[in-house]
C-alpha cells in the first residue's frame, strides 16, 4: 500500500516547496538581493574581494613600496605589466640601486588573475574596488601606476 502514501508524500513535498517559494514571493519587495546599480551608484560599496584593477598605493609623502624587482612583470601571464627601471647610485651607501621610472599597467590586457599581486614581495600593488572602467579611447587603459615624482619608501628593501 505504498502507492497512496507515495501520493501523500509527493503532494506534501510539493506543498513544502511551494511554501518556501511563496514566502520568497511575499517578502520579495523587502528582501531584493540584486543591486539596483545605476540607482544606488552613490552608495554602492564593492566587496573587499572584488577585483577592479591593479593600483599602487602611495602614502602622504608620495612614497610607494615598489622596489622594481619585476616579479610582477614575470608573473603576469599575458604581459600586462611593464616596468621601466634604472640604476642609480645611492648617495648614502655609494652602491648601485635599482629604481622604477614607470610601472606601466595595461588594463586592456589584464585578466584580473591576481598573480602579480601574489608575486609582489613588498605588497606594493593591490586590487582597487572600482568597476566603472569603461573609457572612450583605449590608450587611456594603459596606466602608469607610480605617481610622478614618487620614490620608494625607505626600508622596504631590507
Amino acid at each position, binding site marked *: 500500500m505504498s502507492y497512496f502514501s507515495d501520493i501523500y508524500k509527493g503532494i506534501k513535498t510539493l506543498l513544502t*516547496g*511551494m511554501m518556501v*517559494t511563496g514566502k520568497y*514571493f511575499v517578502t520579495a519587495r523587502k*528582501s*531584493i538581493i540584486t543591486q539596483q546599480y545605476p540607482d544606488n551608484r552613490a552608495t554602492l560599496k564593492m566587496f573587499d574581494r572584488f577585483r577592479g584593477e591593479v593600483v599602487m598605493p602611495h602614502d602622504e609623502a608620495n612614497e610607494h613600496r615598489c622596489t622594481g624587482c619585476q616579479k610582477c612583470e614575470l608573473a603576469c601571464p599575458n604581459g600586462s605589466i611593464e616596468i621601466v627601471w634604472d640604476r642609480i647610485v645611492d648617495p648614502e651607501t655609494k652602491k648601485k640601486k635599482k629604481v622604477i621610472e614607470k610601472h606601466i599597467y595595461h588594463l586592456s590586457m589584464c585578466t584580473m588573475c591576481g598573480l602579480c599581486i601574489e608575486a609582489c614581495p613588498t605588497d606594493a600593488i593591490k586590487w582597487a574596488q572600482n568597476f566603472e572602467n569603461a573609457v572612450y579611447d583605449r590608450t587611456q587603459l594603459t596606466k602608469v601606476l607610480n605617481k610622478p615624482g614618487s620614490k620608494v619608501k625607505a626600508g622596504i628593501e631590507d
Partner: protein
Amino acid sequence: MMKTLSITKTIHEFLFGLMPEGVAMVVEWVLIAAVYLAFFALAGLLLVWMERRIAAFFQLRLGPNRVGPAGLFQTVADALKLVTKELTGTARADQFLYNLAPYFVIVAALVILSVIPFSAEFQAFDINIGVFFVMAVSSIGVIGVLLGGWASNNKYALIGAMRSGLQTVSYELSVGLSILTIVLLAGSLQLSEIIEAQRTGGWFILQGHIPAVIAFMIFMISGVAETNRAPFDLVEAESELGAGFHTEYSGMKFAYFFLAEFINMFIVAAIAVTLFFGGHLSPFGITESLPWLGVFWFMIKVLIIIFLMMWFRWTFPRLRVDQLLTLEWKYLLPLNLMNIVLMAVIIWLNWTF
C-alpha cells in the same frame, strides 16, 4: 447558428439597420475577429510581463521595471523588437511546413478563445458541445509544435517536438477524464450551461467536494503539462535542447509560438475557472444584480489560476521523460478513473451540496 455577442447588441442592430444582411454579417464577423485578435495580443503581452515580474519576485529580483509604469511596456518594446528582426531559417528545411507551423499553434489557441465565456453575454460562439470542442481543438496546437520541430531540420527541435507529442498524447487523457468528472456533475457540455448550473448550487468545486477537488488537482497538473510549461517543459528544456521545437525560429514566428504558449496558459486557466470556479459568476453571488461585472470576476479568477501555474513553474524542478510517463499512467490515470466512479456514486446518492 452562431450566437453573436449580445453585449454589443446595439452595434449589431446598428449594422443590420445600415446595410443588407449579408454584408452586415460579414462586417460583424470581421469586428469580432478584430476584437479577439486584439485580446490575443494584449493578453499575451500582459501575461509575459506578469510572468517576468512574478518570476523575478520569486527569485528575489525586481524584474522589468524601466519601460512604462512598473515595466508594463517592456513586453511591447520586446514585441516591437521581434517585429523588426530578420526571419532566419535553416538550410534544406521544409520551407512550407516551417512557415505553416506557427499558424497552427496560434489558430488553435484563437479558436478555443472563441468559445470561452468571458461573461454571460460575452461569448463569440456558444456551441452546445463546448467542452468537447475545446478538447478537440486544443489537440491541433500540438500539430504545429510537431511540424515546427520536424520542418526545422534540427535534431534538438525534432527531439523537443517528439517529446511534445508524447506529452500531449499522455496528458490529453487526464484532461479529458477530469473534465468528464465535472460534465457528469453539470449534465451538459455547453460551457454557458455549465456556468448556469453553478449559479444555484454553488461552484462545482464546492458542489462536488472531494471528487471535484481531486479532479481540479488532476486538471491543473495535466493542464500545465498540456501547455508545455515547467515542471513539464521538457519540450523546450533550455538546458538540454537549446529551446526545443522553436530553436530555429526567429523574429515574429518565434513570437507567435511564445504568445501562443501564454494564451494556452490563459485558456487552461479559463477552462479551469469555467468548470470548477463558476466562470463569470461572482463568489456567493455578491454582485448578482450587476451581470456586467462578470468579465471582472472571470479575469480575477483566471489571473489567480495563472498565478498558481507560475508558482508551480518557479518552484518545481523539471521531470524526466520516464517520470513524466510514470506520473501520468501510474498515478493520474488510475486516480482519475476511480474519481469518475466516485463522482458518479456521489451524484447517484445525491450527496452533492
